[in-house]
């Protein structure tokens, strides 16, 4: 079988793409590659134009060809001759069924009608597809087979908490709350004092803005922007490098209980503020705990000020918070897992959550909510489960923000309590921690080992393709019949 694959992001540009929308599709594809390689011959394409050309060539040579589009359905090509399977991650219980902006693909049903089959990353999204397309629709829920890549990190009898002599090294940029000199008061010393007795004067009657006024405002805005843009271009043309993210080498020594979270601070659904605040609330007076925030965004400046502001507002606190900004090599990432006692996720919704699966596959217990995709693999044997309940939300790509779906409102209080109870287990009950570690490994081995996923994926692709071929043959036969008539 020939498997054509694409993803919007490739190895060459991944560092700059960290944190951009859809960046995780690169990682998703990367996780599935080993499985795909066992199923057939893999050809990574760089342009969609190649798909039908390659299909025609290989089909003519009698090969089975399938195109696996690893991308959101509304960005998946329809109308290719090559049978196409869409692999996507989705964090909501239902799928977009409206074609906004005159783009029929925004109605995912339209896309799925043109697919040979669909691979969803969670049972919830697979069911969402079935609910929209019918119970017989060829869809399968397959998590990324991450287990095998982290198997080597497991300990035979499970991890013990608070490993001795831990340290962590990486290149990039780091903030350490111990050395930041954080102060809440520092945020306001320059501010003018409020005038407590100020009253409002009655508001002026609002008048409609005239067309002329609006035009004038936009003309001025355009001129300002045009000037600025010219200025920026000038700078670059003089060969001065844009302000680069610092790339220092860091060596951090760690003691006590270490929590880690891997988040994109620009993604509000990840709820990183909840993690920081509940951590500080739980451990305000506890110096022996550390939270490592590994940010997955290419541009430090997009979140730096906000992060520092949140930390200042929490100050003073005795616990330690470390921000790690930078792309970690595999060895460094493995080491991050090793030094971690608990992974933390407080997301309002997840399509899969690779880091969570990776830490679990390595035998690290977690604090996480059991909603959306996490329902498939989180359980109390190795998780401190955060309470969360539905709240209204729009589908992520919907520019009109219609409340067509829901995400989960995280119960902050339970996050805070879980920090405390997990710390208690790390400090007082190492044997319980060890059981949790073993349970995590066992669960992930069953859930996402490569062999198991390869088998299911292979079976699904084969049956999908034969069904597609059958349909194609029937269609050709129909055309031939018509021609005969």
């Amino acid at each position, binding site marked *: 079988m020939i498997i054509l694959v694409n993803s919007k992001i490739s190895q060459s540009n991944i560092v700059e793409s960290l944190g951009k929308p859809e960046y995780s599709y690169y990682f998703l594809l990367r996780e599935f590659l080993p499985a795909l390689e066992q199923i057939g011959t893999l050809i990574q394409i760089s342009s969609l134009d190649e798909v039908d050309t390659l299909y025609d060539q290989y089909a003519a040579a009698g090969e089975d060809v399938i195109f696996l589009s690893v991308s959101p359905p509304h960005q998946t090509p329809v109308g290719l001759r090559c049978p196409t399977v869409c692999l996507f991650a989705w964090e909501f219980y239902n799928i977009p069924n409206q074609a906004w902006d005159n783009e029929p693909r925004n109605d995912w049903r339209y896309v799925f009608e043109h697919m040979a089959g669909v691979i969803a990353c969670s049972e919830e999204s697979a069911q969402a597809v079935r609910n929209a397309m019918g119970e017989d629709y060829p869809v399968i829920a397959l998590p990324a087979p991450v287990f095998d890549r982290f198997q080597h990190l497991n300990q035979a009898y499970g991890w013990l908490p608070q490993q001795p002599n831990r340290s962590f090294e990486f290149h990039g940029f780091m903030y350490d709350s111990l050395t930041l000199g954080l102060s809440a008061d520092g945020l306001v010393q320059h501010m003018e004092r409020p005038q407590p007795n100020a009253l409002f004067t009655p508001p002026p009657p609002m008048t409609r803005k005239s067309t002329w006024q609006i035009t004038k405002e936009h003309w001025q805005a355009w001129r300002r922007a045009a000037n600025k843009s010219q200025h920026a271009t000038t700078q670059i043309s003089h060969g001065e490098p844009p302000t680069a993210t610092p790339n220092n080498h860091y060596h951090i020594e760690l003691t006590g209980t270490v929590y880690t979270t891997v988040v994109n601070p620009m993604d509000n659904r990840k709820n990183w503020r909840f993690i920081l605040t509940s951590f500080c609330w739980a451990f305000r007076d506890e110096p022996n705990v550390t939270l490592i925030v590994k940010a997955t965004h290419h541009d430090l400046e997009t979140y730096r000020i906000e992060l520092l502001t949140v930390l200042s507002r929490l100050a003073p606190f005795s616990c330690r918070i470390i921000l790690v900004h930078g792309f970690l090599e595999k060895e460094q990432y493995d080491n991050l897992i090793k030094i971690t006692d608990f992974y933390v996720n407080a997301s309002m919704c997840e399509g899969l959550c690779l880091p969570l699966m990776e830490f679990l596959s390595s035998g690290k217990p977690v604090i996480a909510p059991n909603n959306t995709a996490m329902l498939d693999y989180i359980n109390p044997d190795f998780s401190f489960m955060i309470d969360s*309940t539905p709240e209204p939300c729009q589908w992520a790509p919907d520019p009109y*923000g219609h409340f067509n779906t829901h995400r989960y409102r995280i119960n902050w209080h339970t996050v805070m309590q879980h920090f405390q109870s997990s710390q208690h287990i790390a400090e007082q009950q190492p044997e319980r921690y060890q059981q949790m570690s073993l349970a995590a490994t066992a669960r992930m081995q069953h859930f996402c080992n490569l062999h198991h996923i390869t088998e299911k994926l292979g079976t699904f692709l084969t049956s999908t393709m034969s069904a597609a071929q059958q349909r194609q043959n029937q269609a050709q036969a129909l055309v031939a019949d018509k021609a005969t008539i």
Partner: protein
Amino acid sequence: MIFFVYSKLNQHTIADNVGVPEYSYYFVLKEFLPVLKQLGEVVIVDSPDEVDVLYEAAYSQGKQAYYLSFMPPHLTRLGLKCPTIPVFAWEFDTLPNEAWWSDQPQDDWTHSLRQCNAAIVHSEFTVKSVRDAMGDGFPVLSIPAPVWDKYASARLAPTGTANTVYKLQVDDAIVFDTHARNKDQWFPNKTVLRSYMDKILGNEPVTAAAKLSAWQLTKYHFKQWREQLAIEKNSNTAGTHWQRKTHHIKLSGVVFTSVFNPYDGRKNWGDMLTAFCIAFKDRSDATLVFKLGHRRYRTAMRNALLTLARFGDIKCRVILIHGHLPDQDYQRLTQATHFIVNTSFGEGQCLPLMEYLSSGKPAIAPHHSAMLDYMDETVGFVVRSFADYTAWPHDPRVAYRTLRHQIDWSSLVKCYQQAFLCFTDEPERYQQLSKNAIERMQGHCSQAHALDQLRRIFGILPIKPERHSIEQLSQRMSAEEWLNHSRDPHFIDARNTGFVDCVKSGWYQSQTGELFSGFPINPEDDVLEIGCGAGGASLFCAKQGAAVTFVDVNPVTVDSVAKKLHNSQARAIKGIVSDSQPLPLDDEYASRIIAMEVLEHVTDPLVVLKELVRVGKPNALYLFSVPDALGEHIQKPLAPASYYQHPNHIHIFEREAFAKLVEEAGLQIIKHDSYGFFWMFWMMLHWTSLRAGGEEADQVAHDAVQPPYFPLTNQWAQLWDQMMQLPGAEITKRQLDNVLPKSQIIIARKISHVRQD
């Protein structure tokens, strides 16, 4: 009693300032007025500057006055002479106990409250926050605004069915009704919604504009310009829909109402609206009425409309009303309402919720902060909530120091649906909830309840707890400070406490005419007092109508007592300057002979006693008091040496020796008593303070020590005063008076056989 009351806004400024910080304090003040008027005179001041002037005037007329500041502690004027009590709402589990600007220490509420005499809040939740910060001793009481009584007529109004139609007229208002026929003219269209979503989702490509080419940039701005023109056409807030006018609204089906200030972030109207729309997207007979109050209503209403636009087609009805409803219309809206809704993150009390419950309208509301006092499933449907981090509202740092309560949105949807079904399918249950609500609120926020609570706080209000430095303890305040201090209605003057204590010991019984119990003074008595001092005893006898002769070695003293007695009811008065050895009086001159705190000063007490026996009539009664030996011995190491030298106490009388002496003089002892633990201990504290400050003793007896007194003696007077208010404290006093008295007293009689000898 006089109350000076203040809030930032008043009846003149409120209309233009609805929604400004602290605006709601005015409404709370308004609710308290009728109750305060039952307790005393109420003066609404326009500025805290007026308070002390008014206070001085009230004080000079002998009236007790309080300053009730309907403002949070950091905005309450501190340092006034008038006792100050802030009345404030607070919905967080911690009190601000930090100041972020060194020049604004009042932002730390513990700093502010320490300078206040007490605090009135509106919920037990707040009481706990205040106690946690200030200590259990701080006087704080929860008195919810008494709104219950106003709704007497609303309570009588019958509840209709889902088919009943209520006609409501709102004047001078802006109203949007999603069931109105002209909805298309004002409801946000797709372009408007898109532009709004771009803003709230941060999709605006403005930040990326720097990287655009000149052509892309121009294209972008052209598109923006065209969009804005379209938006302005649709959302024209100067259009006719946005002009105030009279609206007629017909309400039917099940009506949910919420009354709030949309700019109060705690109110969380977003959840209230979205949960309603999801709960009833297929029901046209469910209505949600938002009665908004804020001067910037346009933005608030637009945001609510934009939120509604995000639902696409839904059947339920939402009505947004902006405008100040006169009481009558407000009550009509209450009548048309079936459920009051609150989804707030925290409440200091929540007037609308209390008002609707008082009218018998069951609630949909969470069980947290102030609602812990009155909200539960017997009066409505409880929305689940959980703790969430937040900052104190007036903290510009937005430092995360306290908790609020986040709403469980899904549980809110369920509450809406259950409430709807309760009204339509279970009318009896609905009636029961309504009845429960009325009863609950009567206990919570009726005027009677508020009156009880206010009486409690003004009845037992102790003066603010004081803690002094060593320097302060060993120094006396200046005469001027003393004057100010003593004007505080809560100030306890040791002289008063001491006098009351004397009376309780048996002195000055005006009812029975006894100078000391067992020593009656009758109009026909001839009284002789030697060593009359300030003349207290002589004056008492004069008031009983007796003839009074008073003797002192000091002519000034005799003169001043003569003046005091000049216009009294005394049958006759006579002042004599003499050292009583001998007295220039005839034998058998007096029927009552008094020598208080005299004998310890004279060289030979027996000589004086015998002289007194000489001038006594047969069966004359004698009253002697001298310092008790125990007290004298105890003071020895503390008091200056001069205390035990001439002209002070040159004798210390042991009890038995004193009795013997009296008998030796030829008198028969009728009663031997002791009293004055209060003064004894007061003197000990006086000596201690005096020595700590290195001050030389000026005076040697409590009645000679002049104010200003030391802080410790003031606090002792206050403590004793408080103890004596307790039932049964008499026993304690009696025991202490026996063990460690200031003085011993002997009442004796001149027996006739002395005369016969």
